[in-house]
């Protein structure tokens, strides 16, 4: 019956650690290519659409960076959670609440002027995501409820709440019956960094988050406590790292960063609140975090890679008549390949009858 058997490896070489995600990515690509062939699509067109076009013009390169921004922010937060073995799969919900809170500031300040509006929005967005992220953490600490289930349930709740707001109290009365808020003023819009460009300040915030995570997770006491808790909770408890406080901390960080991503997207790219403000960034970021091997710089690179894919998938919907579901399926496949790669770094696989 036993077909596979696993033999632990003694040590894992540095090279293998870096090569593994690359191989996983290539394998996932090859499988996807085979699927496309089977569907009778042209691989040449697919390569053009998914890879070449997003990378060849300055304009689309900026688009890639813009898409990577929320992914990076959310993934950085998730890295803290996953390293501590806390599963925040509700980042999507925290993102939405972040957009909602920040958007509320913009709506309330409609018609006002002032440099305070934008920072207030960003802070409100972070606060919203943070508070929303603390709910599953608190439920886990107080009632022992799996944060996986509660954080996911809260995604649906957040989406419905936003839907209610933009169709109800926050609806723009002048926009006929469109379910949307008022258009944000210029003071509430995260503008481009330079004239005629597309990149906005959110990009810098994402880079700042990467830098902060590198510093915190690399050598700080807090980073050590986070990883220790994930690796061996009893040892972390023995060290005196407070499990409950740590849970709150990692959820606060990932919630706040997801919330920040939410308000950045709403302010910079949409300029209004609408029923749906995400393309599943919260879930895609999980894959980003894993593809980056829970390393902040790795996550940055992975976010760029997946951003290319997301942009490609938008074109593909028109050019190849491929729905967004194709991209989603690919992401699931990619995550599986990454996990298999991780397993193969830890174990040698033997086939036996």
């Amino acid at each position: 019956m036993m077909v596979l058997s696993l033999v632990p490896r003694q040590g894992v070489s540095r090279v293998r650690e870096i090569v593994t995600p690359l191989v996983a990515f290539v394998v996932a690509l090859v499988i996807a290519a085979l699927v496309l062939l089977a569907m009778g699509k042209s691989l040449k067109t697919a390569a053009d659409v998914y890879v070449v076009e997003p990378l060849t013009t300055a304009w689309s390169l900026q688009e890639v960076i813009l898409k990577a921004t929320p992914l990076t922010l959310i993934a950085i937060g998730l890295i803290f959670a996953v390293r501590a073995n806390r599963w925040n799969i509700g980042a999507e919900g925290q993102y939405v609440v972040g957009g909602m809170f920040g958007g509320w500031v913009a709506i309330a300040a409609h018609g006002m002027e002032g440099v305070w509006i934008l920072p207030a929005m960003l802070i409100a967005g972070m606060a919203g995501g943070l508070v929303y992220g603390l709910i599953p953490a608190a439920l886990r600490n107080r009632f022992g409820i799996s944060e996986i289930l509660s954080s996911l349930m809260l995604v649906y709740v957040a989406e419905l709440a936003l839907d209610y707001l933009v169709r109800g109290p926050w609806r723009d009365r002048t926009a006929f019956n469109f379910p949307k808020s008022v258009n944000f003023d210029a003071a509430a819009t995260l503008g481009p960094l330079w004239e005629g460009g597309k990149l906005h300040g959110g990009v810098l915030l994402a880079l700042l988050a990467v830098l902060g995570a590198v510093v915190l997770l690399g050598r700080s006491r807090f980073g050590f406590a986070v990883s220790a808790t994930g690796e061996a909770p009893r040892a972390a408890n023995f060290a005196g790292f407070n499990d409950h406080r740590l849970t709150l901390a990692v959820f606060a960080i990932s919630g706040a960063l997801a919330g920040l991503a939410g308000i950045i997207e709403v302010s910079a790219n949409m300029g209004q609140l609408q029923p749906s403000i995400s393309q599943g960034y919260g879930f895609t970021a999980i894959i980003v975090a894993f593809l980056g091997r829970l390393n902040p710089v790795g996550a940055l690179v992975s976010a760029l890679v997946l951003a290319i894919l997301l942009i490609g998938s938008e074109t593909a919907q028109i050019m190849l008549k491929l729905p967004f579901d194709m991209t989603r399926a690919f992401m699931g496949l990619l995550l599986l390949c990454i996990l298999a790669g991780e397993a193969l770094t830890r174990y040698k696989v033997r086939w036996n009858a």
Partner: protein
Amino acid sequence: MRSAPPLIRCQGLSKTFGTLKANDSVDLLVESGEIHALLGENGAGKSTFVKMLYGLLKPDAGTISWLGKAVTLADPDAARALGIGMVFQHFSLFDDLTVLENIAIGTAGARADQAFAARVSALAREYGLELDLQRPVWTLSAGERQRIEIARCLLQEPRLIVLDEPTSVLTPQEAENLFASLLRLQAKGAGILFISHKLEEVRRICTAATILRGGKVVARTDPRKESARSLAALMVGEGVADVRPPSTLETGRDLLAVRGLSVSPEIAHGIPLRGIDLTVRAGEVVAIAGVAGNGQSEFFAALTGEGGLIQSGTVSIDGEDVTRRPIGMRRRLGAAFVPEGRLGHATLPQRTLSENIMLSWHETEDVGGFFLSLDKLRQAARKIITRFDVRGPNADPRAAQLSGGNLQKYIVGREIERNPRLIVVDQPTWGVDARAASLIRQTLVDLAGQGAAVLVITQDLDEAFEMSDRIAVICAGRMHPPVPTRMTNREAIGLLMTTAHGEAA
């Protein structure tokens, strides 16, 4: 007339894990109606050998013949089909299942129904095994648990019964009951392979012995014709030094004081602690004896502040009430702790020894500021490695790469290096080779000699007697107050191990 072939004969059995030769061409022979001892200290290769005998490990080389015929033991089913029964040291039991279900699951084709219950009851009567079939296993003592294993084994009517360290978790009285059952089996003509490192009991009940050291057979002997000392010499090689008693007998002030402590457990199946009183003074070693699972882990957790819901009572360290204070605060008052679990509790298995310094040092020692100083951690690790002779595959190995004995030396060393005034050690030498065990005990006794208070929680009665000035006994979450070690003996302590303090014996 040729005599009948032996029940089982193993020739040249070898097994290698990575670079470690766990068994190196082991020969062993057991006759029907014989109680045969397999002796050796921890790490000598006894468990590996037993696993091959039961089809749990595949030998790299060598043959096994059963009643003169060569056999291959592909899995435990094959071993059981031949008539080999096994009682493991670490019981293969299921806490949430009942006794009856536990016996049924280990018996081919059995369902936990009434007919089966009747069969088990009949067997239990025959061999004098007391079993309450409907109780869930987590409520049982170690002795009761072992009876489940034995019942499982006997149901298969085995011709060879292998017992892996069967008395290590039993009180002396429970061990006597076990011996009685074994002699009954022997009288019925079964062969018994008795694995142990306890020499006295081997000399009492075994008629032949094979001695393993470093994976090799070093001697075959009739244990009844040997002394415990000569057997020990065979097991360990050159002599292991006895632990020297502490130089001073004067004790100072109370460094640990536990008063009326009652704790309810946080985890499922934990043992509640009830009204525990205990004082440990500067300059003395106090041992807490007891059978595993009587509240030792819970008591240790209450002393460290790692867990448990305190109902009443206090824990004070050096006069300061720390009952509800975190472990870091206790360390700052001069306390150090060594938990039972080496990997995953005392250390992070996949981290280096230098990184693992962090766990118990970060509150009291200089390991850098907001950012950790890798240099300081490495220096500390190097010092411990040299001072306590910790041997590993490289200069700064991961915790999981060390052998049990070396890792325990590191863990104890890490705490001693902090110069604690109070040290609490849970099972200081469990599963540790004799040389390392002797070093660890000596280190702790010397620490008390220098004026520290030492509290040792141990299941090993010999260890308790060897190291301590006073012995307390924990049973069913209650503590018998400590008595001076010189004024008591093994039998008296053994009796206390089965009766909870304050209840009629």
